[in-house]
């Protein structure tokens, strides 16, 4: 921050990507530690950001710390580039870092996301930054941080397995559909942020670096490239992802995550790709679904 007088009140200008360099250094150290201990939640001195807690302050700080002038940034929320919060965060970095932005997954070098992993396979020169509301996978089983840190230290994950088992006993299958817990590099159980479990397999052995930022809870964690990420399950109840009965109504894609769109009040609905870039690219390539133009 620096101030210069332009009549009336002093004008306020900010550093590249908003945060000062000391703060970025502190965040980078936390990121390096997180990469060194995959899946471990590293406490960091999260700053107050000019957007509300719970709206991506952790992801924004991680992005600000890794962003360089030559980077090309993509921001998605619910898989889409045009959702309001994605637009606001992209606008924030356009304004404070003046970096190039894109909606194309392949063109981006840094992708900040909320709730999805892009359908297009990521590369090793890309970083995926997740916004995380509650980083602690055990939080809803044990509300106390003092307790959960100890459970992680002892790799004592019995609670989580009991929870999943109780799901099966009660419903016949595991009733967790998003933020589905994973084990990283055979050690830490990690919350993948509220992505649908459909996206979980994409985290495994990904060539891209995956960084997770939780601003309000002041935690950073990471999955280094080509790390084993296993969704928790049981031998007789193996992990399964959601499957959609129909292909995307716009681009005809099968095996992509779909959003349900209600068309009228008579039960009319359609299913379309949640990843807008993926869907648009396919349509440009000539793929058509049943309702595509």
């Amino acid at each position, binding site marked *: *921050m620096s101030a210069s007088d332009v009549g009336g009140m002093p004008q306020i200008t900010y550093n590249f990507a908003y945060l000062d360099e000391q703060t970025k250094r502190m965040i980078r150290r936390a990121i390096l530690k997180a990469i060194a201990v995959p899946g471990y939640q590293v406490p960091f001195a999260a700053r107050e950001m000019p957007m*509300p*807690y*719970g709206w991506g302050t952790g992801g924004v700080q991680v992005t600000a710390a890794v962003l360089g002038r030559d980077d090309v940034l993509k921001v998605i929320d619910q898989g889409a580039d045009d959702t309001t919060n994605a637009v606001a965060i992209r606008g924030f970095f356009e304004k404070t870092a003046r970096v190039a932005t894109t909606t194309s997954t392949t063109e981006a070098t840094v992708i900040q996301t909320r709730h999805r992993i892009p359908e297009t396979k990521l590369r090793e020169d890309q970083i995926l930054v997740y916004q995380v509301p509650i980083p602690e996978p055990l939080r809803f089983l044990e509300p106390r941080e003092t307790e959960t840190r100890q459970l992680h230290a002892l790799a004592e994950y019995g609670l989580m397995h009991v929870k999943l088992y109780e799901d099966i006993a009660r419903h016949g299958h595991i*009733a967790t559909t998003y*933020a589905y817990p994973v084990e990283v590099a055979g050690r830490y159980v990690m919350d993948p942020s*509220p992505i649908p479990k459909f996206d979980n397999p994409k985290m495994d052995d990904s060539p891209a670096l995956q960084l997770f930022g939780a601003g309000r809870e002041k935690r950073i964690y990471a999955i280094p490239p080509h790390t084993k990420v296993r969704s928790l399950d049981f031998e007789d109840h193996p992990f399964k992802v*959601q499957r959609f009965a129909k292909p995307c109504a716009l681009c005809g894609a099968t095996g992509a995550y779909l959003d349900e769109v209600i068309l009228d009040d008579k039960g009319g609905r359609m299913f379309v790709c949640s990843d807008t870039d993926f869907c648009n690219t396919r349509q440009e390539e000539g793929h058509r679904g049943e309702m595509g133009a």
Partner: protein
Amino acid sequence: MYVAAKGGEKAIRNAHALLAKRRRGNENLPSIGLDQIAAQLTLAVDRVMAEGSLYDIELASLAVKQARGDLIEAIFLIRAFRTTLPRFGNAQPLDTSRMLVRRRVSATFKDLPGGQLLGPTFDYTHRLLDTALGGGENGDISGDSPVASGGDIGDIPAAPVAMPRVTDLLGQEGLIEASPADDGAEPFDITRAPVAYPVDRATRLQTLARGDEGYLLALGYSTQRGYARSHPFVGEIRFGDVEVIFEVPELGFEVSLGTVQVTECQMVNQFKGSAEVPPQFTRGYGLVFGQCERKAMSMALVERALRWKELGEEQSAPAQDEEFVLSHCDNVQATGFVEHLKLPHYVDFQAELDLVRRMRAEHEAEMKEAAE
């Protein structure tokens, strides 16, 4: 053909333009000046400075104006600005016994050195709407204003006179626990390092000092209603101006950076004593920027409740639960996370929808099977 709803960018721009218009209100009326906010909405500005953790009257007034009077939003604006400011050092601890006192009351002694000074307070006013205030420029001389009521507002002394704190007076007899000695260590800074529980005193006080007034009020109130009762007395509340002293390492001497207004509350509480300590009074402490008495008192009550372990008391109530109390008292964090529920969640909802449909289908099949 279906076209998915687009235009988030344009919608945001338009919404913000509309917000700016609503903030300004009727353009035939003059815009409120920051000086007017600072001079006439002082307590709003004080609260924004206190919970925003930044003592700057002009910026806090600007925040109140920009936030359309929404104080949590104003606090948020101040916090987001504060976070970008570089730190060039720590001031010397404020010496509140050398305060230019504008108000000072003790509920434990009828009279005491330095006397009782009511100062500007709502206490003992009759809470009757004063329609004279609504009368515009010349009407703003209220029934209880010094001019109308013939009161004598007296003179504020030009310089602070040393006024011992009540706790220091009781302390001489050893009746009350002493303030912990300054060990010279640099205090933990909750804005520069992540908090780990359990916390030390500095962390606890910092967190409470910027905590939400309403939240602390409710928790403090709960201790009075029997949830971790601590038999509190207001040893003293004082409000006034305190000098901020900074020692410049390069110069090797102290300089005054100016004064800040603070409210300090020393709550005196009963303590039965323990094996090592004879019966004595214990303390809860509250210190807040500006004139924020309700907050300072609430803070003192909650601070005392949180000290149960150190005093060998039993834990029985929410106000004593350190991790619970401290991790939820920041209103900027709380409002952000609560309000983030407005953000789209349709990916996760879709996953849940799918699960519920599947479970309903299974349920239906089971019912049919049972009927057959």
